[in-house]
């Protein structure tokens, strides 16, 4: 039988009576013509020749701007471009021009992952080869062999690395990199939008250290950054690097026609407003495309969800495609596996991939035709990144957003305009988070002693240096603070994960071939790798047999069961200090320091097909303590008096549920990074309170942003509850299950109205 084309399948979506009904909105983005300008006269003729050899006869407008501003005028630039828009030329042109003009000139490229660095090395080296010039460009990462390291340090014109390597290998050994640091002309930071939250706050401090070392050797490099679309690219670049930037947003790359389809699964219970699960719908839709040999990417929000969809899809289309042509992709897979999957997607050997947001990054996987999102990815920026995976250049492509039951998903499906017209969110970092700052000051002191009166890129640090002296880490002598400890500070500091050490996952199914299959941060491990947890990896189920918490090792064994596990985290909160407070007659909002004690308590076994609870068990892990920032909202007696006890409890829990979904969207973070906890009687005030706290020790500015934007959040929460078509509250607005009582929606609305009155 002939395979159907994408056009025919799009037609099928439009016309099939059953399917048609589920489509809430169909948005078509027209194709866009390229906007180009001819080569700037100052562009080196050797570069022009190489471009012409590749069939390029002009520059896209954003490439030309980057060359003009960073290449000629030596200004810091941040270019905002979608995927596959030729952004590499935006930095390769100024950098190569500077090296052609002066062979001593050096550049440092930072990519968030090793894979991206590898991609770029091949790209720039092909270009250099085309020019026939003796310019050396290398990647420098954990895989670089010791034999070539010395050559890279001395003679690498372009050194391509990642922030982790800069942090642990380059900066602490800067004396071996003199020729790089003395001649550092450009620092390129690609995928700037990925440097947010904890990771971004760490990287900002690594860059402070980098600038400090560069200045020490007498260089003052220009920054060239590129970013996917976010609301505040310029602000992010400036906070991350401590420099002022010019924004380049005149993207001139062409784009094919895109269909953006909002798909809502059919109702199965009208009164309760319960719909079929998004996962099931995605399974069916994806297999429909895959069977016709249409390359498809499916995004899901959690690792567990990825594995569930993957195993279903592999089963569904196994006969047609063979099991290996659909793969999973997420953090926790080992690099080798990932490279293999990326390559398979490019060559077309792999027909489908199910991924977490790990594939949002610019990893080169070629052009896919269809992108399916299982639920709202959580932010406008992320959504566009994921959508960009389909039809990257000229072809027509299809993006299907399949809504889940969560309030946010349903809100998006009811208000497609909200999404389509909304500007993407801001990316936030807090380089001055005390814990992160102190960690990097230690590294910086190891690299070079601090002088009295010296600031850390503008930050006053005298008190911290004194503290570290008292802790016997630094030694204050003469007018300097010296590193005086026998450790290597960068080794104890991980840029990526909140907790310092990850838990390693060890497969001991085959006793003769025990192997490490992945790793996970400590906090997640509490709820995902406790004993008897079902851990999914590449579609294979494993049961955790033992979790050695001291040694950070989880031993797993392959199993075949019909359920997955879901663990509860019990949380206790103490307010340590109230820094800011805003009071209205109906509620109080405050921001300050809190101590969180979290303990994994029990887990449930949930049947995969029906999602029913089929068993449970207890978890025995030590309590984890977290000192962080929180924003909290409490309600005085005069408000609670307006409700019965039960009603108020419903209102509080329901409102917290709405906030849990709305708040992360507005501060642009993962739902796991900002926890929301309602308490009927908070320990510090005895008043009903909802806490929103940063999951990272010391906070990274999320709770602080929530505090500043409380009125806006209130408004969004109200809109969300109001627009939900249910009658009395449903999983899509005020609660996850039906046990909340029939008045929860009414109670939440009433509470919000009280809050708005003043």
């Amino acid at each position, binding site marked *: 039988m002939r395979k159907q084309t994408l056009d025919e399948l799009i037609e099928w979506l439009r016309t099939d009576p059953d399917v048609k009904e589920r489509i809430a909105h169909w948005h078509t983005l027209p194709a866009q013509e390229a906007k180009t300008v001819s080569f700037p006269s100052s562009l080196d003729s050797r570069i022009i020749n190489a471009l012409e050899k590749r069939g390029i006869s002009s520059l896209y407008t954003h490439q030309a701007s980057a060359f003009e501003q960073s290449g000629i005028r030596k200004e810091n630039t941040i270019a905002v471009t979608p995927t596959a828009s030729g952004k590499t030329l935006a930095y390769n042109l100024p950098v190569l021009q500077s090296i052609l003009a002066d062979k001593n000139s050096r550049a440092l490229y930072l990519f968030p992952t090793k894979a991206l660095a590898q991609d770029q090395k091949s790209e720039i080296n092909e270009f250099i080869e085309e020019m026939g010039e003796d310019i050396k460009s290398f990647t420098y990462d954990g895989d670089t062999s010791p034999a070539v390291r010395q050559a890279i340090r001395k003679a690498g014109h372009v050194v391509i690395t990642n922030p982790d390597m800069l942090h642990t290998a380059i900066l602490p050994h800067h004396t071996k990199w003199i020729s790089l640091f003395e001649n550092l002309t450009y620092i390129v930071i690609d995928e700037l939008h990925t440097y947010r939250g904890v990771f971004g706050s760490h990287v900002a401090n690594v860059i402070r250290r980098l600038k400090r070392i560069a200045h020490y050797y007498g260089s003052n490099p220009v920054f060239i950054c590129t970013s996917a679309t976010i609301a505040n690219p310029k602000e992010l670049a400036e906070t991350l690097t401590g420099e002022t930037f010019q924004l380049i947003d005149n993207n001139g790359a062409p784009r094919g026609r895109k269909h953006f389809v909002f798909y809502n699964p059919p109702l199965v219970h009208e009164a309760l407003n319960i719909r079929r699960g998004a996962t099931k719908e995605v399974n069916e839709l994806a297999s429909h495309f895959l069977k016709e040999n249409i390359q498809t990417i499916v995004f899901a929000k959690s690792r567990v969800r990825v594995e569930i969809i993957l195993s279903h899809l592999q089963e569904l289309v196994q006969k047609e495609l063979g099991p290996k042509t659909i793969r999973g992709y997420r953090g926790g897979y080992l690099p080798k596996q990932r490279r293999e999957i990326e390559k398979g997607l490019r060559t077309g050997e792999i027909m489908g991939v199910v991924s977490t947001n790990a594939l949002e990054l610019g990893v080169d996987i070629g052009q896919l035709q269809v992108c399916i999102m299982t639920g709202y990815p959580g932010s406008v920026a992320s959504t566009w990144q994921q959508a960009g995976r389909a039809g990257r250049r000229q072809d027509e492509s299809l993006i299907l957003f399949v809504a889940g039951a969560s309030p946010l998903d349903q809100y998006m499906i009811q208000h497609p305009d909200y999404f389509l017209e909304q500007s993407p969110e801001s990316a936030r970092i807090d380089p001055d988070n*005390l814990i992160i700052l102190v960690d990097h000051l230690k590294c910086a002191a190891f690299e070079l002693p601090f002088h009295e009166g010296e600031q850390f890129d503008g930050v006053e640090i005298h008190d911290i240096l004194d503290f570290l002296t008292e802790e016997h880490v630094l030694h204050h*002598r003469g007018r300097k603070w010296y590193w005086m400890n*026998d450790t290597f500070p960068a080794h104890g500091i991980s840029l990526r994960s909140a907790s310092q050490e990850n838990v390693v996952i060890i497969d001991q199914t085959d006793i003769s071939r025990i192997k490490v299959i992945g790793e996970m941060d400590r906090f997640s491990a509490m709820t995902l790798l406790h004993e008897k947890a079902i851990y999914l990896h590449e579609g294979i189920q494993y049961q955790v047999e033992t979790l050695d918490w001291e040694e950070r090792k989880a031993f797993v064994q392959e199993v075949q069961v019909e359920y997955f596990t879901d663990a509860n985290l019990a949380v206790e909160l103490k307010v340590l200090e109230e820094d800011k407070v805003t009071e209205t007659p109906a509620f109080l909002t405050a921001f300050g320091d809190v101590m969180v004690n979290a303990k994994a308590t029990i887990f449930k076994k949930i049947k995969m097909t029906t999602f029913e609870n089929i068993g449970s068990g207890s978890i025995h892990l030590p309590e984890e303590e977290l000192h962080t920032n929180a924003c909290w909202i409490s309600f005085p007696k005069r408000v609670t008096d307006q409700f019965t006890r039960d009603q108020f409890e419903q209102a509080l829990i329901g409102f917290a549920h709405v906030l849990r979904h709305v708040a992360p969207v507005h501060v642009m973070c993962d739902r796991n990074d900002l926890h929301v906890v309602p308490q009927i009687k908070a320990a510090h005030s005895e008043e009903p309170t909802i806490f929103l706290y940063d999951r990272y020790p010391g906070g990274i500015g999320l709770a602080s942003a929530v505090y500043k934007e409380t009125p806006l959040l209130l408004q969004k929460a109200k809109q969300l509850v109001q627009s939900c078509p249910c009658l009395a509250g449903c999983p899509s607005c005020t609660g996850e299950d039906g046990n909340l009582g029939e008045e929860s929606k009414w109670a939440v609305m009433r509470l919000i109205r009280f809050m708005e009155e003043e």
Partner: protein
Amino acid sequence: MNIKQKLTRMKSHLSTPNSQTVAPLQPPPVTEKQTVPYKDAWDALSASIHFLDDAYMIKREVAYPLDYQHGNHTFQELYDVCSRWENETANHPLHSCGRRPEDFLFFDTETTGLNSGTGNMIFLLGGAQFTGENVKVSQYFLPGPEAEVALYYHFLSDTPPTHSLVSYNGKSFDWPQLKTRHTLVREEVPKLPAFGHYDLLHAARRLFRNRLSSCILSVVEKEILGITRKDDTPGYLAPMLYFDFLQDPHPDFVKGVLTHNEWDVLTLITLYIDLSKRVLQPTANDAEMFEIGKWYAHVKEWEKAEWCYEKVTVTTTCKELRLNSHFLLGHVLKKQQRIPEAQIHFQAAATEGSAHRYGAIIELAKYQEHQLKDFEKALSYSLTAQRLARDAKSRLESEKRVTRLQKKLPGNAN
């Protein structure tokens, strides 16, 4: 909450290394040219103060007579060793190459950390050298991190650039670390000369690896050199003691470290003498002779290597050692284009029970195929080799050989 309070509260999240329990005494300020704290105590250690601008460093000097016996050797034996190297025409990594005993600097450092990296400071540079009249140990001590310029200035001004360093693991640790710290003060001190460098760790590993549980210097001292230390301060305590010293700059804190370092550099003299003698006049056991042979082979001194292996094949009673020597001897002869001679030894190494049986048989097959053109014999060897192949690489190699030979044989079309 002020920053310090906050930090104290968050201490558990901060990965501060083990806090020490020493009482934090305020160190006396040393910014101006002034009295040196505990100067009398330094005098008692035969140490003197050397200023450079406002900062000072401390230099300690101790002399030993030439006939001083440190372990199994006296220092003056170095004169004999050097002249014997002069009569040795073959190249060897330990060869003194015209250097007199006065041209060596037996060298070791103590640092504030055990890792490499910029922040790991060298606080003691120790060297022993022959003056003609005696052996002088000079130690350059850093009284505080602000005095590095003075430290390197005096060390480099005192040390002739023509000297060669003799160290233990200095090629991968002490020297790179010295280069790193020197880089930070390079504008203010003399250039770092390109010293010659003998790293005795490599040498000790070659000769003693099979005999000792570990080749760390203290084990070599005890098991090989006949040196026993009394009340030694172990090296890993050096950083801690130095940090204590910085809190209260009394030399008592680091006295033990100075002695430890002094012993280390003296031991390097004994070790160089000992190793040289073993190589110059191999009299010891066959196993060592075998290793010396391998060492010569490593530097392509084929005749020397041949001599060692040959000797082992004749004298040893250990079958394993004999077979291994035959095999390596075969290779050494092959290198000298003495191919037919080599066959005798490959033949010997190809017997049952030889660790190199596979390799030896392949050599025999090569000889039959390429020299004698006896493809039948070559095939028969190759088939045996194929049976013996244990790893993927040799399986592939032997299979290729078999296939090729089968094609070469008339009447064997496949």
